[in-house]
């Protein structure tokens, strides 16, 4: 018996992230800016110790997508990035959103959006200072434990509890329990985000519980600066398991 495998690098930055700050975009956090008016916009993306990257966004009230998500870690490399090839402007529908995230690495990014065409440069977003009302900030904490969520601008605080999803029971599935190509129903799905709004009255709830790998979305209703810090790590915190049915004893094959 022999086995071999192609080594794939573990995205270690994901598992080292213990805090999030809306003034810096890191792995597992996303800044989402909503463009409410048509026009041409300049987006400056600055990365630690690097020359800022400039992108042009055209927001139109016509045929254009309502959302783009930009992976900032690949934007520096024109071959890798999935937008803005050949110098073409990024087009967005009025009311659409532009998401900024970084898929890997430990770099932090800052985004500044200004409007073109007016005499004075009109800064629409400088998230190093604050996130304007109407925008969104998301975090996807992986480390289980208790986090403190705070917003000094709105003087708000909230507790975030991150628990491990239920571990699957190892072993064979029940014979005939699933048809070809289907996953078992109890498989954990991390793609179910939870929405929390933050405004002048603070967060709309006092505590949120997430499964590790699930995303918490902050809908900013009044300019905010959000921080999410791991206060108490607790790897033992696990959601109650979803038990699979016991496997029946095998029967002899009929020929």
């Amino acid at each position, binding site marked *: 018996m022999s086995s071999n*495998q192609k080594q794939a690098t*573990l995205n270690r930055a*994901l598992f080292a992230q213990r805090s999030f700050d809306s003034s810096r975009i890191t792995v597992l956090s996303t800044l989402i800016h909503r463009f409410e008016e048509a026009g041409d916009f300049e987006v400056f993306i600055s990365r630690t110790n690097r020359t800022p990257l400039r992108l042009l966004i055209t927001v139109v009230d016509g045929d254009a997508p309502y*959302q783009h998500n930009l992976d900032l870690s690949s934007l520096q490399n024109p071959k890798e990035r999935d937008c803005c090839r050949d110098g073409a402007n990024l087009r967005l529908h009025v*009311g659409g959103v532009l998401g900024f995230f970084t898929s890997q690495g430990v770099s932090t990014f800052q985004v500044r959006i200004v409007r073109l065409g007016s005499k004075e440069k009109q800064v629409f977003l400088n998230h190093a200072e604050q996130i304007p009302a109407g925008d969104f900030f998301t975090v996807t904490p992986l*480390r289980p434990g208790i986090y403190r969520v705070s917003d000094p601008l709105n003087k708000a605080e909230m507790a975030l509890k991150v628990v*491990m999803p239920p571990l699957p029971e190892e072993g064979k599935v029940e014979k005939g329990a699933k048809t070809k190509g289907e996953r078992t129903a109890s498989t954990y799905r991390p793609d*179910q*985000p939870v929405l929390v709004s933050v405004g002048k009255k603070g967060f709309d709830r006092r505590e949120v519980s997430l499964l590790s790998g699930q995303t918490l979305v902050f809908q900013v209703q009044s300019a905010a600066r959000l921080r999410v810090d791991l206060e108490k790590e607790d790897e033992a915190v696990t959601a109650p398991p979803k038990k699979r049915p016991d496997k029946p004893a095998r029967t002899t094959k009929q020929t």
Partner: protein
Amino acid sequence: MADLTVAVSESAFQRLFVVLRDSIRWEAQDSTSFGPFTAGYHVKGHLEGGSVDFRSDNSVLIDELDVRWDQFQFTLGLDIPEICVGGGCINMPWPIPDICLPRWCVFSANPDVSISPDLAAFVAQELSVAGRPVVRYYDASVPPPLIDPCGLLRDMLVNASVIDPFPDHNQWHIHLNPDFIDLDLFDFADIVGNLIENALTAAVTALLPGGWVRNLILAIIGGIADFIRWLLDIPDEIDEWLSDLFNISFGLGDLLIQLVGEFFGACVPLLRVDDPLEVLAKEISTSVLLSGAPVELVPVTVPVRNLSVRVDDVEMVVQADVGG
């Protein structure tokens, strides 16, 4: 009435058959991609055992030939899909569009896992051949075909001194033309399924880091065993899936049947009769001339015509007319 009659007993035929049987060896390899995984094999094998039975309906049954696998290497490669966190969409009230969130993936590239167990010890099959003797005429003046499916096999047997090369004169060839070849389907025991499952599980486990990160990945993929079954599209037992793979997808049994069929039916004759047949060999004789001087006597050959063969439940009988 035929001029020439030769009878071959069942036991003599058995000895003849054993020589040919032992010369049958094969090696084959193939691989196929099934999307998220690739499967392949590299096999080598030969035949053992087998009993010859002459039957009264002019046929020969070679029963219970054991297919022995010297190597039965099975390669299974998994292309593990993305394992990611985050993602999903949130439904927002008008006029805000629904917002879809990015995902973060655990590995920078999709890892591959591959295992290559040798299952030779776990595969046992039997083959039976029933056929009728047929006579074919080998005309040495006809050039061999450009693409000769038997050429390679014959050359190999000649080089191994199993058979004589085809001569530069004509011959009558007696082949066993298979009516049917029955090969057991590949049937892998539970132990093989467990072996493969354990090897795959170990290979996938080796990819995962430890601690809570491992637990998180296990929760996302739903457990390694289920994950592997999902990747391989296995609804049931791995051993059954493996049998289907070899019997249907690879058709390795068909390959073997074709090989044995061509070997006996077209490539290697069981018996050969020279035409013309030498009845007196070339000789240097000193008793022809009174002086006692040596004289070369040319060989005496007779043409063989209308060669036929039949089998009853006792013997194989070859008959022919001799002379023009």
